Every structure is written in C-alpha cells, then in structure tokens.
C-alpha cells in the first residue's frame, strides 16, 4: 500500500510539474531574463544529475567503475558518436572495469 501511495503522489506531482511549464502565459516568457533562466536551468540540473548518479551512492560520495564508464561516454561525445554508442560505451566500460577489479 505504501508503495502505491508513493507511486500515486509521484505520478501526480510529476505530471503537474510538466503541465505547469506549458501553462505559464507567453507574456512571462517574453522577458529576456526569464528566457535566459529557462535555458540555463536545465544545464544546471542535468550537470547535477550526472554528477550525483556517477559519484553518489546513497548519501556517500564514491569513486567507482561508473566514473570510468562516464569518462568513456564523455570521450564518445567528443568524437560525436551517436546517442546509443555513448550510453553503450558507458555501460560496457563500467561492466569491464568491474569485471577486471
């Protein structure tokens, strides 16, 4: 039951967040500062998410095979590899480093 409560709240909350963005009146967006902010916020959030999911383990910071995997992904991105190759490189290198370690 607890799990269903969590799922229900998350689904409702996440949907409302998505919808709210689309509903904001266009007049608000005409302001340059708001527009710059809307462009820059995803940059901050994606960077934070990348760091958290690479170096985070619950409440702890760790340096493990995922870091190697992410380095591989970054290298693939520099080479302008397609999306699936970037993700595949991260998964493969992470698995490889774990297998070796």
């Amino acid at each position, binding site marked *: 039951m*607890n*799990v*269903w*409560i*969590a*799922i229900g*709240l*998350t689904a409702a*909350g*996440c*949907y409302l*967040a*998505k*919808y*709210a*963005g*689309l509903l*904001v009146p*266009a*007049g608000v*967006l*005409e*302001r*340059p*500062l*708001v527009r*710059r*902010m*809307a462009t*820059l*916020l*995803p*940059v*901050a*959030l*994606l*960077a*934070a*998410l990348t*760091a*958290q*999911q*690479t170096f*985070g383990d*619950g*409440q*702890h*910071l760790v340096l493990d095979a*995922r870091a190697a995997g*992410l380095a591989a*992904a*970054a290298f693939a991105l520099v080479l302008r590899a*397609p*999306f699936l190759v*970037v*993700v595949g490189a*991260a*998964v493969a290198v992470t*698995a490889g480093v774990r*297998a070796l370690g």
Partner: protein
Amino acid sequence: MAEQTAPPESIGATGVLSAGPPGAVAPDAPPQRPDKPDAAVVRDALGVGIAVGLSGFAFGVTAAGSGLSLLQICALSLLVFTGASQFALVGALAAGGNPYTAAAGAFFLGVRNAFYGLRLSQLLALPRAVRPFAAHWVIDETTAVTVAQPTRRAARIGFTVTGLTLYVLWNLTTLVGAMGAEALGDTDVWGLDAASPAVFLALLAPMLKSTTERVTAALAVLLALTLLPVLPAGVPVLLSALAAPVVLFLMGRRKKGPGAAAQEERAIQKDTAAQKKATEKTATTEKKETTEKKGGRDS
C-alpha cells in the same frame, strides 16, 4: 527572483517591438531559417528515442531488484514517465524511506520538467487543447531534441517522434527488464547503473555552448557533490539549480561591456529610468538572443 524586479513595462515594450499581440511569440518564430528535411528530424528523434527508450530496461531491472511488483513497476513507467524521478523513487523505497519522503525526492527531480515546459511552449506553440496530453512527454530527451531544431515544424516533428518512440519503448523495455531481472542477477555487474548518468551527460553536452553554460554546469556539479552527503536524496540536485540564477547574476555584474546579460542587469537596476531607454535595451537583448539561437541551432 530578479525577474520580479524587472520594470513591468518591459512586457508591453516587447509586445510592441515584435509587432504582434502581447501573447505572441514572434521573436522566436523561425520561418526565415533554412529548412531541415523532415526525414533528418525524424532520424535525430528516433536516435534519441530508441537509445533512451531501450534504457527503460535498466529501470525495470533496478525496480524489480528493489522489491516492487510487476504492476507497480509498469505503473511508474506509464504514469510518471520521467526517468530520473522513477530511479529516485525506487532507490528511496528500496532504502526503506517512507512513501512521502520518497515521493518528495522524486517530485523534486521532476520539477525541472516545468522549466523544459517553459521552453517548449514557446517553441511548439501548442493549441490549448493539446497541452494536457503533450505535457506527459515533456522530459529531458524530448526537450533536447526539440530545442535543437531550426524551425517550428521541425520542432513539432522532433517532439512528437521522440515522445512517441520513447514512451512506447520505455514502457516495453521496463516490462522486459522487470520480468528478466531474476535471470540477470546483480545488474551492477552489467554496468547498467552507468546508463542513467551517461544519458544525462549526452543530453547536457550539446547545451554547453558558451562560458555561461559551462560555468553554470561546473557550479551545479560542485553544489550537487558538496550537498549530497548532508541533505536528503533529491534535495541536492534541486538546490544545484541555483547555479543558474547565481551565474546569471555574476555574469551580469562582471560584464560592464555590451554583453547581453549586463544589459539586462542594468535595465533591471535602472527601474526608474525612462521607459524609452529600457525599451532600447530590451530590443538589443532580443536581437542578440535571436542571433545566439540561430547560431546554436545551425551548428
């Protein structure tokens, strides 16, 4: 924050400049830009949609390992449909968190989609009746594809194809992952836990166009990693979003020259200045923004 102190007349000024009704998004209307073939847009969209859609497998496996039932796992992918929040919720529940804390963390992660929606409503100019349905697809990947398109038509195609491909595949692979979890055993052995950060990095990379973006990203990483050990799950990422206003503010102060940010900042500070002056500045900024975007989209 700062935008609340902006002179209220700037809205009207912009409306006048764009020679359209106050609600129109004329500065962003892109008909003069070179067209991109529909097939090329579809190819881009499918590339992202398929790659990320397949990573639903990693979610299904992880969620099953956390002890959720098949129905619960599928409900998450069908109804929440924003990967980071789903991973966060499952992780929190597995760690024994109560449902409210777990949902709060997942919700915090999902709040970023509201900001994507801000961008997308501009680019897609969706009819009001379509918005409740389109909203469900407003996520990292659809935003990244849509923002990269040169025209409104391309943006709409990109959004729809990415959204549809991703939704169908994400849910199918979630199901397969959840059912196949037992056979795989420890998913970390397969490196599947690196898929999610790699997806985020791949989405982030094309956004790092100028110093402003890079500094913001660096500050956000620093904030996230510093706060991670001391705050509950989900909160550090949300607070890292503060990097955006902080960098905008600092850039505005530092650049005394003709930088766009500086002009905005000054326009805001001179609340009492004549409206004409403010109007000129808004106009310059608008032009610069449009030029910047053109450059970014063409690359």
